[in-house]
């Protein structure tokens, strides 16, 4: 009886499951059915066993557990009727897998055996070879597969087949290729393409690495490659396999050209699949014969413009491999042109590749700059940061092109102002080379003259600054450009000041801070402004590319670096400390802090990590750095301040101090008083900062740090004095002075301190262990702290003081966070 045609409960079950509207309903039905089947299994119901198993298979396909039916399969296989056996085997295949022991009972075919046990290969070699002489396609097909797999697992088998079978396989291919119409095996006019493919594949294995065998198959390969119909998929599949075989057998240049031309034809095929495989194949062919692939460049370029996303992607990758010095210009031109019309999602990939090509193959700077500007104008929003960083480095180095570049950028920004990275580069260049824009300096022959007024140039920056889509980096760059222009265009100075002032109220701390600082420079320090905003020294390409490659050790000292390291505290006028902040040179000193961040961050001062101070840098450099820090974070308290906070703006207890500083920064009297009092090279520091280093002591002893009250309670006060031994910036010597404020004498006075792991602490013995009452004397104790994270982390310390008053033990504890910066 047939379980499927009459009284079909299987059919009913499928219907019931299909009728379910929700997953929960479906689960319920399946649960019910499973329960029924399980019950039937328990009762050893013979009659319905195969029907139940069929149901189980369906349930299994839906993804429900069916393991309880496994034994049923075996029972069915053991049954006598064919339908039962058939269902049993089907169930065995579907419901069981290799982990189940029972499957070991089932036979595995010989291919599986040799794949698992290669040693058995020799047993199969002879019979397999004889299979190849078979005429029946099915036998031949599987025989070929067995031979192919044998060759893969055994060298010996490969040699054997090469000697014995190459000719017969070639003959078989010839027969099938030349066979007349055979309705049995015909697929769109070709006799059994699958057999073709198997044969070609086996030939590939035989021919690979063997010149004689390769020779033997040349003719037939050429015939297949030329004669096969290519207007149907089946024919193309054969051609494709044939190409692959030609590519991997021993060298025959004629055949290879033929093969690559076939691929070239594939590229113009209407079928996406065929274009796709052709591109993949050409990618591999490029290592074999780049020249032949080059010939299809134009077609590949067309594929870059294909409507199918994966074809575009492949074509672009292939094209990228094809670029060389001779074709880079034309290819780049095409790609850049295509950028205009390409789809949004593709622009990212395309831009990245174009930029990479331009960087890799550019021979002339003007070409590089031109192409980059085009890319930035078209797809500036897709350009990665390092690409436009690199562009700025190149521009900076091309001194004869400064004028040309800034004018081109000016023009580009007018039309493509929405491309953020274009705007950034333009803003940077206008800031640096603004006067060249206005005066048309360094006009090239190819340029059309343009008239730009100073106010036009400021317009560009103002618009970018106020554009709501501009992000923090762009705005910060705009502010710096404005500062620079305020000096280059004195006529616009007032207008620039007004723009800067508007940003004093910015909600972004960075911009607010910058605006206040820059306003102060524009307003009060006309005399040094031009020095501060001098054009940046040429950016060092080697340093930059070194950093880009991720080598942090590439701290190549440049002439600028040398300038800062001048001893004796007089900053060289060409490189005043503030300019250090605005350019790269502070980086060139061994600078642990800057290694991780991009140079433009340093340039903008966006990252506020403390500037470096290393051994050998002089005191002026040191205090210069402090000035920079102070400039960046306004609230450095004066020396006598009792508490020191690194971020006053966020520390409420220091409100008074910080506002005091703010006033100081904006009140004209204070800085000028400082100027008059300080000598030589230090006015810059003084006027920008509340505390002036004492020139006399600092020249002798290295940097001077303010003393701090480290601890104060009702009865005890601890004062820390700092000094640094020359030549060792990591170490700080601290002299602690303890004063007793109470009317009672402290005895057994012990001071203890603990520091975090990055610090090392050494305590010298105290001068005494008795502290007289009411400040009638003090104890001093020296300690040395070595900061292994010098320049990155500041000191911090926990202290504990124990003493006796009238033989009563007293313990005081505290934490010191107010160490001066830079220790």
């Amino acid at each position, binding site marked *: 009886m047939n379980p499927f045609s009459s009284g079909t409960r299987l059919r009913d079950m499928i219907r019931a499951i299909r009728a379910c509207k929700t997953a929960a309903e479906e689960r319920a039905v399946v649960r019910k059915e499973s329960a029924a089947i399980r019950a039937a299994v328990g009762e050893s119901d013979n009659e319905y066993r195969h029907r139940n198993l069929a149901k189980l298979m369906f349930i299994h396909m839906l993804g429900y557990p069916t393991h309880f039916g496994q034994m049923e399969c075996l029972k069915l296989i053991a049954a006598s009727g064919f339908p039962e056996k058939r269902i049993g085997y089907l169930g065995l295949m579907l419901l069981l897998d290799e982990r189940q022991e029972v499957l070991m009972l089932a036979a595995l075919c010989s291919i599986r055996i040799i794949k698992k046990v290669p040693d058995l290969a020799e047993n199969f070699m002879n019979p397999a070879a004889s299979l190849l002489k078979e005429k029946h396609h099915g036998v031949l097909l599987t025989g070929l597969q067995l031979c192919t797999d044998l060759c893969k697992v055994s060298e010996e088998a490969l040699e054997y087949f090469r000697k014995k079978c190459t000719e017969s396989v070639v003959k078989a291919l010839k027969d099938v290729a030349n066979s007349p119409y055979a309705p049995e095996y015909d697929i769109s006019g070709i006799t059994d393409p699958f057999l073709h493919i198997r044969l070609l594949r086996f030939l590939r294995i035989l021919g690979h690495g063997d010149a004689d065998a390769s020779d033997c198959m040349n003719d037939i390969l050429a015939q297949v490659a030329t004669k096969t119909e290519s207007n149907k*998929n089946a024919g193309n599949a054969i051609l494709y396999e044939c190409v692959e075989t030609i590519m991997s057998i021993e060298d025959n240049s004629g055949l290879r050209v033929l093969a690559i031309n076939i691929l070239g034809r594939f590229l113009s095929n209407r079928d996406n699949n065929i274009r796709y495989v052709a591109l993949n194949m050409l990618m591999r062919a490029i290592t074999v014969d780049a020249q032949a692939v080059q010939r299809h460049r134009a077609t590949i370029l067309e594929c870059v413009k294909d409507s199918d996303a994966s074809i575009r992607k492949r074509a672009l990758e292939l094209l990228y491999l094809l670029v060389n010095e001779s074709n880079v210009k034309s290819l780049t031109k095409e790609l850049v042109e295509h950028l205009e019309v390409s789809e949004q999602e593709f622009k990212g990939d395309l831009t990245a590749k174009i930029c990479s090509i331009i960087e890799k193959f550019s021979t002339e700077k003007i070409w590089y700059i031109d192409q980059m500007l085009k890319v930035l104008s078209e797809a500036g929003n897709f350009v990665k940061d390092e690409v436009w960083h690199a562009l700025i480095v190149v521009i900076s180095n091309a001194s004869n092109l400064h004028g040309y570049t800034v004018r081109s950028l000016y023009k580009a920004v007018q039309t493509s102002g929405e491309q953020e990275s274009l705007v950034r580069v333009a803003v940077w260049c206008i800031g640096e080379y603004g006067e060249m824009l206005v005066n048309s300096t360094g006009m090239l022959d190819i340029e059309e003259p343009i008239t730009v007024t100073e106010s036009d140039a400021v317009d560009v920056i103002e618009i970018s600054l106020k554009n709501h889509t501009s992000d923090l980096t762009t705005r910060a760059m705009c502010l710096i450009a404005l500062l620079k222009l305020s000096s280059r265009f004195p006529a616009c100075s007032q207008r620039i000041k007004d723009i800067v002032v508007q940003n004093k109220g910015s909600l972004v701390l960075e911009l607010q801070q910058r605006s206040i600082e820059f306003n102060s420079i524009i307003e009060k320090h006309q005399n040094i402004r031009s020095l501060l905003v001098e054009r940046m020294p040429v950016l060092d390409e080697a340093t930059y590319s070194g950093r880009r490659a991720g080598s942090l050790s590439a701290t190549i000292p440049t002439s600028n670096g040398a300038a800062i390291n001048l001893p004796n505290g007089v900053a060289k006028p060409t490189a005043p400390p503030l300019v250090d902040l605005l350019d790269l040179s502070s980086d060139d000193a061994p600078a642990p802090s800057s290694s991780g961040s991009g140079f433009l961050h340093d340039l903008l001062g966006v990252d506020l990590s403390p500037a470096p101070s290393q051994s050998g840098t002089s005191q002026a450099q040191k205090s210069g750095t402090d000035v920079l820090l102070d400039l960046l974070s306004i609230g450095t308290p004066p020396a006598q301040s009792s508490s020191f906070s690194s971020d006053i703006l966020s520390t409420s207890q220091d409100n008074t101090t910080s506002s005091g500083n703010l006033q100081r920064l904006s009140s004209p009297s204070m800085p000028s008083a400082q100027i008059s009092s300080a000598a030589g090279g230090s006015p810059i520091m003084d006027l920008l900062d509340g505390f002036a280093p004492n020139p006399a002591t600092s020249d002798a002893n290295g940097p001077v740090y303010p003393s701090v009250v480290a601890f104060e309670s009702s009865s005890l006060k601890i004062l820390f004095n700092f000094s640094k031994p020359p030549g060792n910036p990591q170490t700080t010597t601290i002299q602690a002075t303890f004063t007793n404020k109470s009317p009672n004498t402290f005895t057994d006075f012990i001071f203890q301190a603990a520091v975090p792991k990055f610090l090392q602490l050494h305590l010298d013995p105290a001068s005494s262990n008795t502290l007289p009452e009411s400040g009638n004397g003090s104890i001093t104790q020296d300690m040395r702290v070595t900061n292994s994270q010098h320049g990155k982390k500041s000191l911090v310390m926990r202290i504990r003081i124990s003493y006796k008053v009238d033989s009563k033990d007293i313990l005081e504890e505290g934490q010191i966070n107010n160490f001066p910066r830079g220790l």
Partner: protein
Amino acid sequence: MIRFILLQNRQGKTRLAKYYIPLEESEKHKVEFEFRTHKVIYRRYAGLFFSLCVDITDNELAYLESIHLFVEILDHFFSNVCELDLVFNFHKVYLILDEFILAGELQETSKRAIIERMGELEKLE
């Protein structure tokens, strides 16, 4: 070789699945476009996706053609096949598939031979 065959409809419901390699149950449910180191060749017939997972070095066009041949056989067998035929007669689809592909390799490429053999099997039942 073919690693597995999947027939799925547009909602992603599996209509037929056959694995020629042992796979963990959990892996069977999360097959992606590129599976392990193999590639998936798929072709859509109306609402049904026929996917073959094959070795990376295999000929994509050939497998595309074999999917087509399989569909032709189904079409011939069920005379104008539709998704419902496959749902209700999944066991027969398995039979056809077994005649066509064995252990992950094509074994018979003649449509006529397969149809004839199916006829014999039908008679047996």
